[in-house]
């Protein structure tokens, strides 16, 4: 599939303007390197959604991280995830127009990884980068359609949580994550 560099540049510009971090890597191994060397992994602890190891293609990342002495914790309850230094999950789609990622987890435990951890890493297949929000609208329409696969809770996330309620002073990190790190993997099919 053709991957337009322009789209990635646009995504990066938008995401970083919103206070997020951006990475475009070749393989899962490279993604693991980015995560392991990130300052949020100082405690070598990473929270992931339940049964993340079974999710294709991302599950293959966990052994790589564990090999580098990262303790992988599957999210149990909201309280256990709250303020964990780092969490990892994946997005259905990313959109260059606004630098956003679309998260669509039905289970609460999976969802709180993106809500309550201090740094949230999001994995995206590089070919899931859309140009404009219109594509997000189409995907939302499919995902929310009644049926067994209906997604009940979807968030289009752009950067970390923020406020400017007090004197319009922008403060990053309010009730959600203080850092959002988006990792695009180009060759996600190449399982290690």
């Amino acid at each position: 599939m053709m991957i337009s560099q322009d789209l990635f540049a646009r995504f990066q510009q938008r995401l970083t303007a919103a206070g997020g971090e951006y990475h475009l890597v070749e393989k899962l191994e490279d993604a693991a390197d980015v995560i392991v060397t990130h300052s949020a992994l100082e405690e070598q602890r990473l929270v992931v959604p339940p049964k993340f190891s079974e999710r294709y293609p991302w599950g293959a990342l966990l052994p790589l991280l564990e090999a580098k002495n990262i303790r992988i914790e599957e999210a149990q309850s909201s309280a256990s995830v709250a303020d964990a230094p780092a969490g990892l999950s994946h997005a259905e789609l990313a959109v260059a127009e606004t630098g956003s990622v679309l998260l669509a987890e039905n289970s609460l435990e999976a969802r709180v990884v993106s809500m309550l951890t201090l740094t949230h890493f999001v994995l995206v297949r590089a070919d899931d980068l859309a140009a404009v929000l219109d594509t997000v609208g189409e995907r939302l329409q499919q995902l929310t359609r009644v049926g067994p696969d209906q997604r009940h809770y979807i968030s289009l996330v752009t950067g970390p949580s923020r406020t400017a309620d007090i004197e319009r002073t922008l403060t990053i990190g309010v009730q959600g994550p203080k850092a959002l790190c988006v990792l695009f993997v180009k060759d996600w099919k190449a399982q290690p």
Partner: protein
Amino acid sequence: MTLQDQPSAQHQIAEERTEAAQVALVGTGSLQQRLSEETANPTHEQQPFEERLHHALEDENLPRALGRFAPSWRESRQNVFAVEENDYGSEYSFPSLRSRLRTAKDYAIEHQPELVAQFKRQAEAAGAIVYEARTAEEANRYIYELCHRKGIDLVVKSKTMASEETELNAYLEERGITAVETDLGEWVAQLNHERPSHMVMPIIHKTRQQVGTILTNATGREISREDVAEQVSVIRVEHRKSFLSAGMGISGANALIAENGTVMMMTNEGNGRLVTSLPPVHVVMAGYDKLIGTFADAMTQVRLLARSATAQPITSYNTFLTGPATPDKEMHIVLIDNGRSEMRADPRFKDALRCIRCAACANICPPYQQVGGHAFGYIYSGAIGLVVTPFHHGLEADAGPQSLCVSCNACETVCPVEIPLPSLILDVRRRVVEKKGLHWIKKIVFWLMAHPRLFGVFTRLTSMGQWPITHGSQYIRARNFGLLGKLPFVKPLVSLASWRSLPAFAPTPLRDRVKKHEISYSLKGETSSRSLNLTVCYFAGCMTDRLYPEMGEAVINILEAAGARVVFPQQQSCCGLIALNSGDRRDGLTMAKQTITMLEQALEKNRADYILSASTSCVVTIVQDYLKLFEDMHEEGWLKRTQALAEKVVDFTGFMRRVVLPGNVALPVRQPGSDTVITYHDSCQSCNCLGLRSEARDILQQVLNVEVHEMPQSDVCCGFGGSTSIEHQAVAERLLKNKLKNAESTGATILVSDNPGCLMHLRGGVDVSGRPIQVMHLAQLLAEHLQ
């Protein structure tokens, strides 16, 4: 919903302290308990408008805070739309996007019953329970009973204006249920027993020092009065326990997407997702106006809402909920009518149901910037607040706030769904006036103006008898009154003239000067090239005629110098603007009909090509306000006549730019001296209603070869606002001072504009402040340089 700014150089980026977060789960005693103690006597009863206004005017922080925000918002908002348009083409421009969203919302309003049915069907299929509340009381009761049934005594809330509308917090608290606001601004307001003063930025009126004190008192520990990051970190700590223990989460909705029964919610802080995920019951409160057809429509709303609200390209979190978030949860969607059906049934006010609550109309509003949302609104603030309050909270609640509108029309230019806010506010004003009556002075003045002959006699008599207060000058100055000013019925006049000298009536009105000098005018015309072979019927407007005849002479001189034949219909009088803008439709209608009849006759008799006025206010009244007036009154005949007439009506600036300049008419002028510095004030009617921006600059450049020294915020209202400057002098005075300060900052020796109302106001202000600035009409500046 809380939408916040995007990072920019002027914003200090403050990293929250991590240690604060690490104690998050330790909790800090019983915040809920303190909240319920403090709210045992909640001050949810609104103070009377006069008190709210008084507090607002006394509050020194308020205009400073809002004054800082407004200019940066205007600029960032323009930029964010310009970037989109530049990157993605004209389909993504503000005008295209807003027309798209308007169409989508209009469809939703038109097809509301079908969309409600579709939304309900889909939401219920996904497992949600939909309840339709006719009134605020029904909505509140439903939620209370749900709490009661489930034994819930703690509720966490993310920002919802709908719950402010129904005053849910007070309702629950009176019944022993604690509701904790989890949006930072809402929470601070709640702690301080206040309502949000802005729909998007609830505590925009508060300083960090005030916030620090409120948080210190609420938490019982010392919170910094200066460090915003520390203040922000408090909320994460304080609310974590509430989130994990609350039995119910209540949120609002930014849209209800009918096609799949989905609730869209936009937030920045991350509290919205916690409120809707963590507690076992989730209640959505939303007005019927939130319905929208499709996800495609929702994306258009996403593109407009944050950009309009805070100039952010998009909010941090746009969440789409379809049924309960997890199978073990309950989701209740409370659809609220509370006056919306009545709005929908009203051919004009149904447009207000398009609102997406971005508050751009507040951000751009000049009086709002002076008094904030507690005075400029009731529960909903800003221009839209003035429009919807009568439907949700009664006409009485709006009687005071609506009087603050200066009819500058700025709100309409930024509304992302094209709501005709200024004209709807005037409709509200008319309803208030019909119910409460006009002030007796206005009653007499408008009646007099609706009787041209009497009005003429009155102005002539006054011009003869005004010497004691003018001392022969062009101004009525406060200091001229002397002992006379002590008289009770003179005092108000003295106070009016104290901050802005009032104009004296001209000893010889324009209508008389025209008669006397008829020959010299046409002589001037003879001297120039007759390349403009056309006849202009000049409608001066009562202000120019009676107060500033020299302005009118300048207009005639320029037109004749350009080669036009100018006729001045002697039957002309006031267009009725002042009565219509004050909600006096009866006198306004009389003046409108007189003006139309007079102009039709003049047009026919003189075979004129144009009807020209050098008052953009009068032009707007004729070409826009009359149409709406006759439409409303179902006066088909008058409507058609006005439509036909309106095609011929032009303003001076537009005529010069579009007819004279392209006609290659060489006006015989000399260039101003090098020590002349000119700055330009864009009158609201000129720029917001007629779309004039570059025209006056082009004229000055091409005719006089001068560049305008642009003042900051040249298109912000000077504060005249018709009778608003009489009713709310403090507000008008502040706007005037800002304008003159901005003009002065350019080093200008001449302040130019093209609307006599503004010129009167600006001259009076310059006269009081003693600034060495001349204030004149564009036509006067040109005429002064005629050779």
